């Protein structure tokens, strides 16, 4: 059976017979490095990042056992993040078609025409070719004139309801508070077995007063574990409030209006 390497070399020599062995080798290296690898990086599916908590645990365990150099989760996290960064740089900034592989266009090396300040378009001709991705459009409501029909499969680590979102935009101090809490949550928890849902609700006693509620979902944990988590999270949020650069009155106001709640299921 012919190996893939042999097949590639034989195909390349057949299609470019004038090339010497060295030139061919250089061309293959360039092809892989400059065209195939970027394409592969964009196509590949990257897993989720390991949780910061598990990376930290690994680091602490390694220190305890004197294995500082061995930290697979940390290395994995770095690799995923580096690959994400490369993918970002290869983003396909100009594309209008999701199915078009980057760098594979046949016309790429062709030089044609000179640009004009204003295009001269034959609208009738263009009309024939204008195609709309109907499958995609049927799949979603035409938001922002409506929400997408497709539901997000699993809950994210943090989600805000529309009122929280709106208030973040309209109040700088609220954005700072929520940003600080989000930052704390992200540094201590990862997506998977826990999720935080932020909502704004009217106070039961004084309906004109609104409170920000953080609902914590821990579906896989026992009642006792949930209570332990609740205590821990409450303390963390209290610390965040303490660290804010606000007056004492404002701090008290925040304390009064921010509640956490662990969901029973």
């Amino acid at each position, binding site marked *: 059976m012919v190996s893939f390497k042999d*097949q590639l070399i034989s*195909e*390349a020599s057949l299609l470019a017979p004038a090339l010497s062995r060295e030139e061919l080798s250089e*061309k293959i290296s360039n092809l*892989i490095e*400059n*065209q*195939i*690898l*970027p394409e*592969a990086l964009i*196509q*590949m*599916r*990257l897993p989720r990042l390991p949780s910061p908590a598990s990376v930290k645990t690994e680091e602490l365990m390694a220190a305890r056992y004197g294995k500082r150099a061995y930290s697979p989760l940390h290395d994995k996290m770095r690799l*995923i993040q580096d*690959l*994400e960064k490369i993918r*970002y740089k*290869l*983003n*396909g*900034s*100009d*594309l*209008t078609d999701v199915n*078009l*592989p980057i760098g*594979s*266009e046949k*016309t*790429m090396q062709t*030089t044609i025409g*000179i*640009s004009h300040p*204003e295009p001269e378009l034959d*609208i009738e*001709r263009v*009309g024939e070719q*204008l195609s709309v*991705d109907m499958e*995609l*459009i049927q*799949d979603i409501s035409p*938001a*922002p004139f409506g929400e*997408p029909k*497709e539901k997000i499969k699993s809950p994210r680590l*943090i*989600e*805000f309801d529309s009122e*929280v*979102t*709106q208030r973040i*935009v309209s109040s700088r101090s609220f*954005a700072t508070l*929520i*940003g600080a809490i989000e*930052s704390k949550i*992200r540094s201590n928890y990862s997506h998977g077995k826990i999720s935080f849902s932020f909502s704004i609700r009217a106070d039961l006693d004084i309906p004109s007063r609104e409170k920000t509620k953080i609902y914590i979902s821990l579906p896989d944990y026992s009642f006792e574990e949930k209570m332990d988590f609740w205590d821990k999270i409450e303390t963390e949020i209290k610390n965040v409030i303490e660290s804010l650069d606000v007056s004492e009155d404002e701090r008290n106001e925040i304390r009064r209006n921010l509640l956490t709640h662990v969901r029973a299921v």
Partner: protein
Amino acid sequence: MVERMTEMDISSVIKQDIGAVYSAFKNEDFRNMNIFSNRIMSNALFSDDPKFTLIGFFLKDIALIYDAMKARKELATFTTAKSFGEVFLKSLKIEDEIDEHWKKYHEFCNSVREHTATIHEKKSYKEAIEFSHASFIWLLKLLEKDKELLLVGKNQFARGILNEMNRIFRVHGGGIEEIYAVSLIRGLQLYYEYMDYFEDARTEIITSSVFPYVDAIAKTMMAKEVNQKEVTSLLRRIIIDWRLSYIRFMERPRIVPIGQKPLPITEETRQKLSETIAKALEEEVK
């Protein structure tokens, strides 16, 4: 016989594009959000209304901001920052006047910038709009004065100007005029990157097609009172040239050195190679 497209038809198609943008945004698929935003600008070629082009351009920038944020190691306030994009998208009305679109985009940029700063930057830097204004004018003058540098192969002059503007705006904020300036330079950079395709005609095309834009940007932005209509019209012309370049040359290669002839292998082999490498990399990060 095909019926002529009306503004109504185009508007309806662009609303669908915006729907796709919103769906991608909600699902944090910023790569597709960028692609759908490009579609808006390409579909806007069939219309005389500059606001369609403007909407696509703003949405593309928003996609790139969140994509960069997501790729960063520190995702600390990503959901909070995403709220600004969510509200921008929800409040986006195709019927709004151009002035309203610029205003909302400016508000968005000024709000989200705080969430793109590092902890150290947040602690140290304060808003300094006058500094931003003066430095943007300085950079525009520099671009105009040294525009011949754009003829030099592999130069990064336009990208460098854009990088400084982005950095200054992100750290110190800016007024609507800084938003105009950075948008014009961003558009110019997108168009300018296609110049390498012209190979032997590169100098001639840059001189006849890019230099007039550099001069027009400087003139428009250094006027005593910057005229929003002029900015919009100039930006639209640059974007049209960029989108036409995409139709002519398609996506710019990211890393392939200029002038390097590709190896003529078949599409199947190329695909197989790409899949093999992708699989090996997936295995590595499993």
